[in-house]
């Protein structure tokens, strides 16, 4: 084993894409498969510069369909394989990711969201929430971490590999173009020194011995003949997912003690604006709290409901036209809370805008 890419821990100032490449290295990722698309490409560029020094591999594929399926192949072979994509590339990724969902293949994909629909912008959005949580012809048996900044990108990229391999669901690190391209400080570290042990990988094919002679043959299926057969398979995946969900869910709340005038619900980088809005609102005599789900799949619904129960109103803020809102409505179903929105598809949200929206609504 070659030397560790990150030793001890140190403070750095870099772009989010570079952070992801370092995190994947630190997480002992073996191979990256990918296809260039802005603003994801720098992850590949950093990876291709760093990986050979540590004996890791890379394949640039012909498109994102291939990037997804080769990643699936890499994981089937027993390697910690990952990819990164965004926007229209993420659309193409939904096909291989539905295969990963069905076959319990622990792929890791980093998604710095760009604007949509279509080619849209190469800049930023939160418009890939629906696709990343529930894309493909599947049931959303995926794990989606929505990061808010560089420390998150580092922490959750490492964690994504472990969650994926422990629970065997395709796992996504859902960032955005802002996080991809901006530079800010963070601490990178050797996971082992933080007591983080990388979950061991194991091959699904090419096991020791001769199949059918001294060991069972590995037949990996995603196709079934009867409704009953399929139903049983999907229900068993669903059961595993439900069981794992409480262990996987993560969230943060800010100033949600006591009765709130308004609870701001936001995820990802928009959560930073929400956090920034709280003191401004306080100065204006408004008691606001903020709840941020870190996992969008599984969604910490119970925790969100508890926070919502203490607020007079809800404000959902996102850089999309209601994709997160849909998840919120599902989580808060049956609660009698008025929901206001600040929906800015493909555009950033600032603390000031949130404050303005709340004051305007009063």
């Amino acid at each position: 084993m070659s030397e560790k890419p990150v030793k001890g821990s140190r403070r750095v100032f870099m772009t989010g894409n570079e952070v992801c490449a370092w995190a994947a290295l630190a997480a002992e990722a073996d191979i990256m498969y990918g296809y260039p698309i802005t603003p994801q490409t720098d992850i590949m560029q950093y990876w291709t510069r760093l990986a050979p020094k540590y004996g890791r591999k890379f394949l640039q594929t012909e498109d994102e369909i291939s990037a997804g399926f080769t990643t699936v192949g890499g994981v089937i072979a027993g390697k910690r394989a990952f990819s990164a994509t965004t926007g229209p590339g993420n659309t193409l990724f939904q096909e291989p990711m539905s295969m990963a969902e069905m076959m319990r293949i622990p792929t890791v994909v980093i998604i710095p969201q760009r604007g949509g629909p279509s080619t849209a912008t190469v800049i930023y959005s939160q418009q890939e929430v629906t696709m990343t949580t529930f894309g493909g012809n599947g049931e959303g048996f995926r794990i989606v971490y929505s990061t808010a900044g560089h420390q998150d990108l580092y922490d959750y990229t490492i964690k994504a590999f472990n969650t994926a391999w422990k629970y065997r669901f395709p796992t996504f690190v859902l960032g955005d173009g802002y996080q991809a391209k901006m530079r800010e400080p963070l601490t990178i570290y050797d996971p082992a020194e933080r007591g983080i042990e990388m979950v061991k990988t194991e091959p699904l094919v090419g096991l020791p011995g001769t199949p059918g002679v001294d060991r069972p043959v590995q037949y990996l299926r995603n196709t079934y003949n009867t409704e009953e057969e399929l139903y049983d398979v999907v229900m068993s995946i669903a059961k595993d997912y439900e069981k794992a969900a409480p262990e996987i869910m993560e969230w943060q709340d800010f100033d949600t003690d006591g009765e709130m005038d308004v609870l701001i619900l936001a995820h990802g980088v928009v959560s930073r604006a929400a956090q920034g809005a709280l003191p401004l609102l306080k100065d204006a005599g408004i008691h606001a709290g903020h709840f941020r789900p870190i996992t969008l799949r599984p969604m910490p619904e119970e925790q969100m409901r508890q926070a919502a129960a203490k607020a007079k109103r809800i404000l959902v803020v996102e850089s999309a036209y209601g994709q997160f809102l849909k998840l919120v409505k599902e989580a808060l179903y049956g609660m009698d809370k008025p929901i206001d929105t600040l929906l800015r598809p493909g555009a950033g949200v600032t603390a000031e805008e949130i404050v303005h929206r709340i004051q305007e609504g009063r």
Partner: protein
Amino acid sequence: MTREKVALAPHMPKCWNPDTKPHKFCPGCGHGLALKMLGEAIDELGIQDKVVFGCDIGCSLLAWDFFNVDSVQTHHGRTTPVITGIKRARPEIIGIAYMGDGGGYAIGAQHLVNSATRNEKVTAILINNTNYGMTGGQMAPTTLPGQKTETTPYGRDPKETGYPTLGPEMVAAIAREGAYVARGSISNLRQLKKYLKKAIQNQMDGNGFSFVEVLSSCPTNWRTNAEATWSFVEKDMAEYFHVGEFKVPGLKEEK
């Protein structure tokens, strides 16, 4: 066992999975013959423990539990990238991607082209039976001019739908030194096995991409009897799709 019974017992390649035999292909289908030659090739190369067999969707999928080798069902057209991903991650594995003409030349054409261009060290085997069999006999990239299918009920009109894809010719044109490209036929099994063996050996030698198209039969969708079926494979198809080796590593001039 009496002598008669021994004689009646079908000869099966050692690497076949006997529990899934008789296989699920239609009577007269060429897949069984191609897979038999592939099985013998695997046996003769002694690589049952090293092969990972990927199946495309379509009739190729029916081969998913055909062998006692680790096998992966993929998606339609996506077998080449799945096997490529496995091979890149674990070069010691011998990756075989098994697909039909639709999977290789239509929906997965970009993967075939680019794997060949990159000279991926995998072996792709493509069954050409001039139609989409599993979905009930629609036009495939390989459907012959004038051939009737469910989506060309008056016969394929090249003016409207182009001419049949010449896969090995295309792959040979884009693949570089180290690639092995051939077209065999179920009408010449000895030759077919030779091609399949060479295609796998070529991967084992680390030379480059290996590709074998197999001219095959589909009497169910062709609606042909035995005689007409063989005649279509041996005459009509062979006339358009030339059997032979198109690229052999080390040979300067390939036929």
